[in-house]
């Protein structure tokens, strides 16, 4: 965690338990004590496999969900338990971009309506909102003349641009982007990745970029947090985490990503994990990664390792009893 005087976003011991499917079954701890900061203008990548709690974390930060424990502090103010009415002025600054552009846009509304809605909610006049919408369309690379078209008239990449324009309408400082490119065709992903980079530079946005694709996250983020079963197992500057992963899970995850280079693929040593990620309804005792971990020892089965600095002088933190030496 960086210790900037006051980060834009401060998340501490955040947790979310969902009730179990049956009356007497144990609650599912989707997120179990997550802490990190995001500085203004910075991108934190949040990576992990399905069910690790990364999307739930994002949804708590924009308060689509109310956390069951812990706190979300935005710009110095604890927003974890604010009411919808108290949240309304903050919605301007905290926005979200979703994975599937088509299902997150109302098919019966025109682009004009979709993008200007947040503006009208915040009190703009109809004429101002329309003018601003045309500007936003231009900003994200859409043709402003298409303002009265419907979402189905746009391709997937263009629809995602609409989603991004909508999130930018009220001039946010933090955008939580949940898998913003994973539903797009490969040849279109780069357009959106570049667009998000350009917008960050021009508007000074901070991103929480949630994704399962480690190559995309490496491209966009300054720091990266790796989640496993509701917890952060490693967090630090991108250069360190990608070049010298310290947690065995991070190492396995990186080594599993196929490289578009046949010679490198043949030469590569892969760490293949056994089994699937366990269910968050019944997490293993101790370190929750131990059943799949190639280096697990006795202590790993009984004691959960805290997230701590493993290499003196580094900001990177690892939750492992036996981290890789850097």
């Amino acid at each position, binding site marked *: 965690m960086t210790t900037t005087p006051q980060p834009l976003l401060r998340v501490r011991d955040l947790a979310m338990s969902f009730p179990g499917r049956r009356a007497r079954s144990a609650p599912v701890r989707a997120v179990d004590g997550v802490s990190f900061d995001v500085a203004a203008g910075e991108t934190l990548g949040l990576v992990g496999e399905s069910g690790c709690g990364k999307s739930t974390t994002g949804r708590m930060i924009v308060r689509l969900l109310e956390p069951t424990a812990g706190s979300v502090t935005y710009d110095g103010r604890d927003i974890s338990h604010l009411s919808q009415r108290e949240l309304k002025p903050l919605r301007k600054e905290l926005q979200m971009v979703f994975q599937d552009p088509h299902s997150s846009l109302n098919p019966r509304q025109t682009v004009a309506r979709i993008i200007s809605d947040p503006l009208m909610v915040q009190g703009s006049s109809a004429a101002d909102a329309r003018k601003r919408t045309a500007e936003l369309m231009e900003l994200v690379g859409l043709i402003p003349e298409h303002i009265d078209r419907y979402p189905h008239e746009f391709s997937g990449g263009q629809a995602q641009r609409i989603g991004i324009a909508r999130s930018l309408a009220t001039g946010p400082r933090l955008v939580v982007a949940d898998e913003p490119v994973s539903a797009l*065709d490969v040849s279109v992903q780069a357009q959106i990745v570049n667009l998000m980079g350009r917008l960050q530079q021009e508007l000074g946005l901070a991103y929480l970029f949630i994704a399962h694709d480690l190559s995309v996250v490496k491209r966009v983020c300054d720091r990266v947090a790796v989640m496993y079963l509701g917890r952060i197992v490693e967090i630090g500057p991108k250069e360190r985490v990608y070049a010298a992963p310290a947690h065995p899970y991070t190492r396995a995850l990186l080594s599993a990503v196929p490289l578009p*280079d046949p010679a490198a693929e043949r030469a590569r040593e892969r760490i293949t994990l056994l089994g699937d990620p366990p269910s968050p309804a019944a997490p293993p005792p101790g370190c929750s990664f131990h059943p799949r971990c190639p280096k697990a020892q006795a202590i790993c089965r009984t004691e959960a390792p805290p997230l701590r600095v493993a290499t003196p002088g580094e900001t990177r933190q690892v939750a492992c009893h036996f981290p890789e030496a850097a």
Partner: protein
Amino acid sequence: MTDTQPLLSVRDLTVTFPTKRGPVRAVDSLAFEVRPGRTLGIVGESGSGKSVTSLAVMGLHSGAEVGGSIVFDGQELVGLGERALNRLRGRRMAMIFQDPLSSLHPYYTVGEQIAEHHRVHFGSGRAVARRRAVDALAEVGIPEPERRAGEYPHQFSGGMRQRVMIAMALACEPDLLIADEPTTALDVTVQAQILELIARLQEERGLAVIMITHDLGVVARVAHEVLVMYGGRAAEQAAVDDLFARPSHPYTRGLLDSLPRLDDSDDEPLRAIPGSPPSLLTPSPGCAFAARCAVAAAGSDEERARCETERPPLDGPAGHPVACHFPAYEGIAS
């Protein structure tokens, strides 16, 4: 290496769907071969025709018009009757899909579904078929196969379900396995397991595999030969090392350039391909990629007009077949 006879040989394959807005040609003049023990990777994006191609090979297009020739182990499949196809499908060629849950019947146990397969194709008795189902589950690395055979699909995780699909596909010991985005819905650590499993089974049995994917990383890992498709046609065909060392079609080059990768520096912005994949409803008379192509855009007016109006033939001055009027050769590249 490639002196064995091809198991599957496809020539001039076209697949046309009748629609309200007129016929749509989803696959156009495609040709490829697959040999025993080898993997052909078919790469493409949405609408490229990659999945339609695989369904055509399996004879699974009701309503579509399939033209050209598909020869499997010496037998022509185009125009073959359902009964004859049924003897091949599942028995000598099998297919696995992206979403295993929707390909498995929710009401029957996994063991029953694999066993039924065996009984239909081999006429084996219940006990034998069940024994074979348990063996098949063990072979794809499912722990406690005896117990798991009695469970239902929803009781399996995504990765385990895909193993069940593979067990079912391979229970009758087919010669050809078509895998259509088999790992796209899976997590990356589970993807690695499934790709390793397919590679091991291929080695043990000399399976021919068609791996359909949008992921160039997966292709680099598993394929021997690669077919890059765009807008229903072949854009480029090459041995895997050749393709990655000398990508010659502007689309292939564009894809490789636009890919964020773990093994590069992040200093420069990605070189994105502008625009989106084309609609098959309004096909271009020329090259399907012309509207997005950097080479066409940089050409003279005449050159650009040629790309837009004249379909480039698939031929090989670049060393392997490329469908482009102005392919990039090694040395002349960008």
